[in-house]
C-alpha cells in the first residue's frame, strides 16, 4: 500500500505541490516583469528628476535668454545664461562627427559584409569593434596631447594630405562611373574610345580640383588645435564601431537569396550592392547612423578635454577650426562649483541643458523608430 501511494504521488501532483508550483511560476513571472520594467522605470525616473531640477531655472530666468543669447557667464555677479552658442557647438561637433563616421562606417560595413573574404572579416571586425573598448579619457588625452599640437604645427599640410587621401579614391570612382554612363550614350563602335576620353577628361579635372583644394588647405594656419575639427575627428572615430557593427548586421540580414537573385539576373557585384543590398538594408543603416550620432552627441570627456570650451558661434558657423563649447562639457565642467544647497540658477541651468540633451536623444530615438516602422510597412505591403 505504501508503494502504490508513492507511485501515485510521483505521477499525479498533490494539491499542495501544484499550488506551490503555480505560486513559483507567478513569482518568477513577477520577478521578470519587475526586472524588465525597471529599465523603463529608470528612463522615466531620469526624465522626472532632471525635469524637476530644470524647471526652477526656467521659472527663475525664463526661456528667452537661454535659447537666444550667446553670452555664457554663469559665475559672474550679474550672471548670464545664454546657451545658444553651446547648442550650436554641440550641433557642429555632432555634424562633424557624422561627416566622419557615416561615410566611413557604411563603406567599411559594405566592405566587411560583401567584399572582404570571410577569413579577413574574422580579423577586421573585432579590430574595429576594439575602438569601442578604448576609454574616452584615452581618446581625450590623444586629442589633447597628439592631435592638437599636430594640427597647430602642420595643420595645413595634414588637411591637404587628408583631402587627397579621401578625395582621390572618391574622385576615381566617380570618374569611372560617370565615364561609363556617358559612354553608354554613344554608338556601340565609338563606346570604347569615348569611355577612355571621358575617363581622362574627368580624371584630370578631378586632379586639378584636388590640387587647387590641397593648395588652399595647405596654406591654412590653425592657431588653436583644440577645436571643433579635432573633436569631430575623434568623435567620428568613437562612433565608427557602432555605425560599422549595426549596419554590417543590417547588410548581413538582407540575406543570401537577395544577393543570388540579383546575380542570377545578370547584375554585377557593384549593381547588386547599390541597387539591391543597400536599399534592402536601408532602415538598419539609418538606425546605425542615428545610434552613431547619439554616441557622438552624448560624449563628454573628449569634448571637455579637446574642444577648447570657448562659448562662441564660429564665424562662419561651419568653421570647424574654431574652439567651441558643448552641452555635455558644460554640464561636466560647471557642476563642481554650482551650489545645489542654495539651489541657484547656476545649478539649475545645468539641468535645463541636460533636459535638452535628453529631449534630443529621445526625439532621435522616436525618429529612428518611425523610419523603421515605415520601411517595414512598405516592405510588407
Amino acid at each position: 500500500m505504501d508503494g502504490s501511494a508513492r507511485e501515485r504521488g510521483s505521477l499525479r501532483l498533490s494539491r499542495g505541490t501544484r499550488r506551490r508550483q503555480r505560486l513559483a511560476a507567478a513569482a518568477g513571472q513577477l520577478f521578470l516583469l519587475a526586472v524588465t520594467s525597471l529599465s523603463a522605470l529608470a528612463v522615466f525616473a531620469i526624465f522626472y528628476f532632471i525635469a524637476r531640477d530644470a524647471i526652477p531655472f526656467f521659472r527663475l530666468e525664463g526661456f528667452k535668454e537661454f535659447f537666444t543669447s550667446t553670452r555664457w557667464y554663469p559665475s559672474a555677479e550679474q550672471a548670464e545664461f545664454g546657451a545658444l552658442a553651446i547648442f550650436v557647438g554641440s550641433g557642429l561637433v555632432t555634424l562633424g562627427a557624422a561627416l566622419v563616421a557615416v561615410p566611413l562606417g557604411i563603406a567599411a560595413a559594405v566592405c566587411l559584409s560583401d567584399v572582404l573574404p570571410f577569413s579577413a572579416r574574422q580579423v577586421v571586425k573585432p579590430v574595429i569593434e576594439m575602438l569601442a573598448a578604448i576609454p574616452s579619457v584615452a581618446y581625450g588625452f590623444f586629442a589633447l596631447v597628439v592631435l592638437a599640437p599636430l594640427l597647430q604645427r602642420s595643420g595645413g599640410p595634414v588637411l591637404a594630405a587628408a583631402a587627397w587621401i579621401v578625395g582621390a579614391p572618391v574622385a576615381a570612382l566617380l570618374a569611372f562611373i560617370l565615364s561609363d554612363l556617358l559612354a553608354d550614350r554613344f554608338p556601340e563602335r565609338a563606346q570604347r574610345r569615348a569611355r577612355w576620353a571621358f575617363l581622362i577628361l574627368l580624371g584630370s579635372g578631378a586632379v586639378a580640383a584636388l590640387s587647387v583644394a590641397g593648395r588652399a588647405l595647405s596654406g591654412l594656419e590653425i592657431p588653436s588645435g583644440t577645436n571643433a575639427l579635432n573633436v569631430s575627428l575623434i568623435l567620428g572615430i568613437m562612433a565608427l564601431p557602432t555605425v560599422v557593427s549595426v549596419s554590417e548586421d543590417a547588410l548581413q540580414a538582407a540575406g543570401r537569396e537577395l544577393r543570388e537573385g540579383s546575380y542570377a539576373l545578370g547584375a554585377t557585384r557593384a549593381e547588386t550592392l547599390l541597387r539591391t543590398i543597400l536599399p534592402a538594408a536601408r532602415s538598419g543603416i539609418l538606425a546605425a547612423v542615428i545610434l552613431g550620432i547619439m554616441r557622438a552627441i552624448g560624449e563628454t570627456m573628449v569634448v571637455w578635454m579637446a574642444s577648447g570650451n570657448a562659448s562662441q558661434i564660429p564665424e562662419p558657423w561651419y568653421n570647424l577650426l574654431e574652439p567651441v563649447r558643448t552641452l555635455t562639457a558644460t554640464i561636466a565642467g560647471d557642476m563642481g562649483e554650482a551650489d545645489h544647497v542654495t539651489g541657484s540658477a547656476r545649478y539649475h541651468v545645468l539641468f535645463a541643458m541636460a533636459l535638452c540633451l535628453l529631449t534630443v536623444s529621445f526625439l532621435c530615438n522616436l525618429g529612428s523608430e518611425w523610419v523603421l516602422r515605415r520601411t517595414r510597412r512598405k516592405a510588407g505591403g
Partner: protein
Amino acid sequence: MNTMKTTMAGLMAAAWIAGTALAGDANRIVVDGSTTVGPIAKAFAEHYMEKNPGVNVTVSESGSGNGAKSLVNAACDVATMSRPMKNSEKKAARDAGILPIEHVVAMDGIALAVHKSNPIADLTVEQIRDVYAGKIRRWSELGGPDQPIVAISRDTNSGTYECFETLVMNQQKMGEKVEYVGSNGAIRQRVMSTPGAIGYVGLAFTEGVKTVTVEGVEATPETVVAKEYPIARPLYMYTNGRPKAGTPLADFAGLSGTPEGKQMIADTGFVPLP
C-alpha cells in the same frame, strides 16, 4: 525617494546642530569657507589629526562668504577666506558677539605663461585684461609676432579662476574666444604645445613654459610675499578671538608658521609666508 529626502534633511540638520553645538568644543575643530584655501586646510587637518589623535578636524568648502557666515553664527571655529572680511561681515560678527581675528596663512600668486618661442617679456595688468576680454586679438598688438592670441583660462569652478577674475579682470567679462581647461597641468600642456597661447597658472606650474613679468615684476615666491607682484593675494583664516596658546585651535591656526606647515602650503601650490 521621499524617505531618502527626509533622511538627508535629517542628517543635514543633525550635522548643523552638531556643528553649532560643537564649535567651541576644545577637541573638535570645525573649518568652513573658501574652496581656494580648502586644500591647505585639508592638508593641515590631516597632518594635525595624525599628530593629535584625540582631536577631530572637519573641513568644508562652501565659499568665502559662507565661511564668514558660519563664523558669525558660531557654526565653525575657523573660517577660511580667499579675501579679507568685509566691513559688513565684521559688523555682523560684532553684533553677534564674535570677534573675528585675521590670520594670513599663505599667499596665492598667478603666473602668466606663454610659449617658449614667444618674444614677449612683459605685460601690464591692463594688457592682460584686454587680451582675456577679447580686445587684443593678435600678438603684434603687443609688439610680438603677427599671429593670433589663443587665450586659455581655467574653468570657472577653480580658485585660480576666481583669483584671476578678481585681480585682473576687474568686473570685465572674459571674451568669447577664451578657451577653458580643467586644471593647471592642462593649461601648462596647452601653452607648451601652442605657439600663440597665453595661460595663467599657479606658481608651482611654470616648468616648460615661459613666464612673463607683470608690470616689470617677475612672479616668484619672494615677489609674491613682498606684495610687489600685482597678481597675488593673501589667503586668510579667521577665528573668534585670539585662540589661547596651547589649545588645539591655536596649534591648528598656527601651523602655517611651522616648517611642516610651510612645506604643506608649498605642496598645494601656494606660497608660504617667510
